[in-house]
Structure formats: C-alpha cells, structure tokens
C-alpha cells in the first residue's frame, strides 16, 4: 500500500518532466532547434548511456573518474569550509570582541564573487586539485559561519536559568543546550554549503583543470559533441541532486525533533532499546 502510494506520487512528479522532454524532442525533430545550441533529449540520453554504461573514455578516464574527481574535490572543500565556518562561528559566539571586530571581514568575503578571485586562487594554490578545493572552501564557508553563529546566539533565557539552577558548567551548557539548540540552523547552513561547494569546484575546473565534470563540458563542446556537452551538464545536475539529497536525509535524521514522524521513530527506538536491556 505504502509503496503503491509512493509509485503513484513518483509517477505524478515524473509526468511534468516527461511532458517537457517530449515537447522538446518533438520540437527538435521537426527542425525547430539548432542542435549545436540545444541537442535533442534522445541524443543527450544516448550519450549519457554511453558514458555511464559503455564506459566511454574521455581523455583521462571514464565518466566515473571525472565524477569521482569532482566529488572528491567538492567534498574536501566542503569539509574545510564547514570546519572553518563553524570554528569561526563558535569563536564569534563566545568572544564578543572577535564577533564585533573580526567577523565582519567574513561578510566582506561573502560579497566578493568567487569567480573574480579564481585567477588569484590558481596563482596561490596551483593548477592541481588544491585550487579547486581552495575555491570550494572559500565560497562555501560563509553559510555555515553565519547560520551556526545565529543558531548559537539564539538564546533562551529560561533555559539558561534552568541550567544555572541545576549548577551546570559552561561546557555542559554548551554541549547539552546551546549546540543541540543550534542544530537546525547548523544543518540549514550545511545544506546551503554543499551546493555552493559544488559550484565552487566547477567554477575552478572551468578556469583550469585536467579532470572533473566541469571540464568535460568544455571538452565535448570543443569537439563539437554537443550531446556530450549537455550530458556533462546533466551529470552535474545529477551530482547536485545527489549531494543535496544526502544533506537532506542527514538533516532529517539528526535534527529529528522537528517533525512528528521523526519524533515517533526515535521515541519508539529508545523504548525498544530499554525493553531489550531489561
């Protein structure tokens, strides 16, 4: 029953995609489109099939290698970004001087567009993976910074008083109240950061790269293989959806207390755990 519902709603959602793709295909077939600009979906699909299931080699390796390279660069950049962003946020949350005088510089970084600093990044970090990771880090550290800071500063006077009356220390207060209380904001920041990190990686790959999904797009276009170029774009979208979904699932799992289903799930689990202990 449940799976049936899922299938139906999935079909419903897919319907609009299918209609759009169908219209596009038909329009292209009847000569309405210059395929150097926008190849028809069937050709892109065919190319995707070749890339993913026939292991077509593009210069350095298969699509999986490029996919992996991009994902790895993005993930490392993302990790650095959240470490830096969160560390700064925690320092800023605890130290007013830092928050007042140093944190505003983080805002300056945010209003500086990543693509404009790309040449500098390449000059500083070279043309290997480092520069991709560096740009991903640079563009993605801000959302975790600002969100975590907001979350940590979101204070509840009554909770503070409660912790004081039961004699909690600063660190107990931090771990047991302040941090969990900020988790929804922290996760919202991570979700923003993960797509921005991907964007940063691809911008950097456009500038100089030997491997990665970003460079494939140009490489195919250069060979006049526009279906391939668009297939790379679709691959990027797939990667985007993938990381977005992972972030979303993690968010739901960890910040379970926001929705009733999550609450019931964890509540039942804890109850079971207790009864099996006894």
């Amino acid at each position, binding site marked *: 029953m449940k799976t049936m519902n899922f299938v139906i709603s999935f079909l419903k959602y897919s319907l609009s995609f299918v209609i759009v793709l169908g219209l596009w295909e038909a329009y292209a077939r009847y000569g309405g489109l210059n395929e150097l600009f926008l190849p028809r979906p069937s050709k892109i699909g065919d190319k995707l099939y070749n890339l993913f299931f026939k292991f077509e080699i593009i210069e350095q390796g298969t699509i999986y290698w490029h996919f992996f390279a991009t994902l790895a660069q993005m993930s490392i950049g993302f990790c650095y970004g959240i470490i830096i962003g969160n560390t700064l946020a925690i320092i800023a949350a605890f130290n007013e001087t830092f928050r007042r005088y140093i944190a505003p510089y983080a805002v300056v970084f945010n209003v500086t567009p990543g693509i404009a600093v790309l040449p500098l990044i390449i000059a500083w970090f070279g043309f290997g993976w480092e520069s991709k990771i560096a740009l991903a880090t640079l563009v993605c550290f801000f959302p975790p910074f600002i969100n975590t800071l907001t979350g940590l500063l979101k204070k*509840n006077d*009554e*909770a503070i*008083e*409660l*912790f*004081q*009356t*039961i*004699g*909690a220390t600063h660190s*107990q207060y931090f771990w*047991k*109240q302040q941090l*969990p*209380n900020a*988790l929804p904001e922290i996760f919202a920041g991570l979700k923003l950061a993960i797509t921005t990190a991907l964007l940063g990686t691809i911008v950097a790959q456009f500038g100089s790269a030997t491997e990665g999904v970003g460079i494939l797009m140009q490489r195919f276009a250069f060979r006049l293989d526009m279906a391939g170029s668009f297939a790379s774009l679709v691959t990027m979208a797939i990667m985007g959806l993938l990381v977005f979904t992972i972030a979303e699932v993690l968010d739901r799992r960890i910040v*379970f*207390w926001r929705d*009733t289903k999550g*609450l*019931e799930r*964890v*509540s*039942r689990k*804890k*109850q079971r755990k*207790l009864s099996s202990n006894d």
Partner: protein
Amino acid sequence: MAATAKKKVKNSSFGQTVIDGKNVTKIFGETVTALEGADFNIRAGEFISLVGPSGCGKSTLLRLVAGLIEKTSGDLTVNNEVVTKPRTDIGMMFQKAVLLDWRTAIENVLLPSEIQHRITQDDKNKAMASLDLVGLKGFEFHFPKQLSGGMQQRVALARLIQTGANIMLMDEPFGALDEFTRERLNIELERIVGELKATTLFVTHNIQEAIFLADRVLVMTPRPGRIAKIIDVDFDRPRDISIQTSRDFNIIVEEVRDTLGGH
C-alpha cells in the same frame, strides 16, 4: 481551623529559618525599582505562596533567592549563607516547562543528575518513579512535542523532584493549565511537598490556588514592588478541594483581594 487576618509569627510545626531576606532591594538599570525593602523569612518545610499583580516583582524575588541575579542592597541568606551564585540545593521551576526538545521525557528528568555526575541505574529508577508520581507512567520515552502542555508541565515538575533539592522555587508553574488539570496537580503537589518536606516558594496569579497550597501567603503590590502583607493559612493538611467553598477560605480570599485592591 480558623484563619486569622493578622500578620503573626508562628513557630510551631516548622524548622529553622532557611531563607532570610532583610530589606532586600533590587533596582534594574538605574530607575526600575523591581523590589523595595522586602523583609521575609521562610522556615524549613514551609510552603509560601506569592501573589501580586503583573510586574510587582514576584519573579524578581524568586530569581534573587535562586542566585540568578544580584540584589542591589539588603541582606539575603539561604541556610545562613549569603547568596552569591546559583546553589544546587535550590531547585527551580519556571512558568514555561523549559524542556529540551531533543530529549525524551525521562532524559529531560535525568538532566540535573547528568549535570552533577554520571548517571547511575539509581538515578534512572528515581526518574521513572518521579514520572510515575506526576502521572506520566508510559510516557517516559515521549519527546516534549509529543506531550500536551499539561504533560510538559508535569515533566518539569518531575525534573524538579529529581534535583533532590529541598528548597523549591516555582514561578507560576501551572499558569498554562486549565483549571481542572491545575486542581489535580495542586493536590499532587501538596502531597509531594509534604513527602519531601521541602521548603517551597510558589508564585501564582490564582488566589484560590495560592491559599489552597500555602502555609503563608505573601501579598505583593507594585510600583515599587513591596511585600504588602503576609497572611497565615491554617487549614489542616492534607487538604481537600472542598475547603475552597468554606467560609474561612473565602474570608482569606477577601483579605487578599482587599490588600491587592488597596493599591
């Protein structure tokens, strides 16, 4: 069983002075006098209700005793020690339940134990028992969001019991409850406090509730916050809900009203 309308000192059934305030004054900022020259002393095992209009300084008084804020002048001691910071022998319950959303009912109740030491099986048993005491058997593993407002209040009460503090400060703890649930909890609270022999300072807006629970009622008046009168309540314990319709009870109600109305 007669209630006298005069301020009188009663030394009979209670122990030594536990909370002692002399001429306690609290001024916020430079101009807001929240509490002025308050004199009060509360003895071991006594239940004191605090009533007064909004903004008269009830919460301020409680927070001073709890050591959450500092007095501006006067003397304030708890168990003969000058109050300077929060003490672990004082437990406090707030108007809102203040539960941590990410902890189940029992985990919330265990919080005070967790803060003081590693939790033991003993603590867990005690927490189960206090939840049972407030009528929440079977809801131990529910999260706050899965409980109704009244149930959340009761978790907070169980947590207060868990602290093991023998001085309890309660700031309108049942403010958000309907009268019927509130009455039930009042009876339970009377029993619990009696069992624990705890010294209690209880703030409420509800005059009936204040009198029903108290050994003495402190009536406060605003601008600036002062203690206008201290009224003894001499009904036997445990008390039955029916005393609320008795003549003696209503005489005290009138006295409280008059004191409040006089301002």
